[in-house]
């Protein structure tokens, strides 16, 4: 990596902002990991790979809702951005099956729906 300068920082910003498309983020701070986010992350990654899904699976920090960890946020184009909580292995699979593939939201696990995107 060439060192950034005052002039090239903005270019780096635009380039970094460009990544779009579908994504899943798993809260992987101490609170999330303690609640089992590590397993959830691995399952999501495995399944996505196995099914050849066009989706990025990323880590993020603590969103604050520690009572509902592990938290998984999902964005699929054409659907609202959703935060799922209390995600265990079964729920992680259901997210892939129902939300990502079936384009339907899961019952009883949604902690937030963000609509400002599309």
């Amino acid at each position: 990596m060439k060192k950034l300068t005052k002039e090239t920082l903005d270019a780096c910003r635009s380039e970094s902002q460009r990544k779009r498309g579908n994504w899943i983020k798993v809260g992987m701070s101490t609170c999330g990991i303690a609640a089992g986010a590590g397993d959830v992350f691995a399952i999501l990654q495995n399944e996505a790979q196995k099914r050849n899904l066009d989706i990025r699976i990323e880590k993020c920090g603590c969103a604050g809702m520690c009572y509902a960890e592990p938290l998984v946020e999902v964005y699929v184009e054409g659907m609202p951005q959703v935060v799922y909580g209390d995600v265990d292995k079964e729920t992680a699979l259901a997210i892939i099956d129902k939300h990502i593939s079936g384009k339907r939201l899961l019952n009883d696990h949604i902690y937030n729906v963000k609509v400002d995107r599309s």
Partner: protein
Amino acid sequence: MTMGYKKIVLLKDTGSTGRTKEFYNLFLEQCRLENLQDDVQIVRVADIGMYDKGIVVRIIPGDITYAGVTEAHIQKIIQQTLKNNKPVKELLFTRASKQMRVVLKSCGEIDPENIKDYIACDGYQALKTMLAKSSSEDVINELKTSGLRGRGGGGFPTWMKWKFARQIEADQKYIICNADEGDPGAYMDRSVLEGDPHSVVEGMIIAGYAVGATKGFVYVRAEYELAIERVEKTIEQAREYGLLGEHILGSDFSFDLEIRLGAGAFVCGEETALIASIEGKRGYPSPRPPYPSVKGLWGKPTVINNVETLATVPVILRKGGAWFASIGSENAKGTKVFALTGKVKNSGLIEVPMGITLREIVFDIGGGMLNGKKIKAVQTGGPSGGVIPEHLLDTPVDYENLQKLGSIMGSGGMIVMDEDDCMVDIAKFYLKFCVDESCGKCAPCRIGGFQMLGYLNKISEGKAGEDDIELLERICNASKKASLCGLGQTSPNPVLSTLKYFREEYLEHIRDRKCRARKCVDLLTYHIGQEKCKRCSICMRNCPVNAISGDKQQGFLIDVNKCVKCGKCFDVCKFDAIIRE
């Protein structure tokens, strides 16, 4: 961009009746009758961001929210909103979150291990603009306008600290980030370091520029393994990208960072002890003045700031001091992160504008009390703070207000307590923590703490007399006045504030030998209520010390002389026949 998603109806019963499922079925049924099942998805949600508003229905797209919905409204919602996109006016509710995320904005949004994610969210823009356009004085003036005060507990104006350090001529100055975070129940700083570590690093570089320091240390407690790992990665990446090291972003300014690990002693969060610890000495505090900004690490001018304070700095430079000062209350500007825990439904990290009331925090953000019990008090400021009783929950949260009430803002731990919490026990818990953590250098804290704890133990064991309260108070005041550092100066706060608001409870322990919250084991007795007892013998079989005797014909009795008051019988009895008084 397509708005192409089909209609989604989110619903939840936010009251105590728990009718979410039933209502969901009704709604589903009626949508089927209208043949809407392919166009509308109905979803039961776990949390809808509102509490005690009856059944809440939120419809997307359009983001219409209805509160207090009943069965009778379902048809109207279907006909007007789902079919014709018209709101049902009488049910409309404006959702407004009382949180405001400034420091935590990117926590949970970005990948903390990827510098590009931070850069994409305007990361290092403040640094760039500063290096291009601002003098060190400009930066300090901007902070002055913002009104930012330290978030580590003391609440000292950040700009002043920076100004003192800037004014002094020295061949070397230092910036220290205090990430020791030792208050029980507090984890704000850990979350920021784990979730958005670059914001802290950017804040430190800016501080370095403002005071003329070229070297910084992040002092983290060794237990924070993940935070340490992420800060290490952050420093590496920042160096690789030319944001740390020589000639930052191609400018003349150079600054670099190192991590120092603390062994987890609470007193090492105190700035002078922390500095001693970095110097490789024993973590003992020393008298101030001189303040670290004059004579700090290795005798050089040193700015020491809390994680949250530093993470706030880049946002202030980016959006302007005036913007920051427009948030909050008269006395306290901006936002504050709190770790909300205890007997509250939604425990977690919250960020709120200063001046919000404790009641709003507990009920509108925290979702109210766990198990529907009555709130008794909120503890703020950890072992240096105090309890704020229910009748004062409408006080706006800021540094001065909390202090007036005998507590402090502290670093942001906030523990909600209900009727099951005994105030003597709470005072004992915090004081015990401080006694364990006292470094022992000064007598008022070392001996005073020990003595205070002795009195509290006496009270909770039912062995104290009424004059003991007075003696306890005297030692509290002596420790406050005469201790060398903040630890001993503030450790009496939990005792004094519980005495101030819950003196009656102390007196009950002393006079009546009673603990109304049933926490103080020595004041409890267990016996069996014969009317309720079904003689199942489960208590006898579970008693670890064989204190229960009898048989299924005669019934059972607890021998109070043998009983160790462990509560096992109380827990296992299915008929509420064990009486605990």
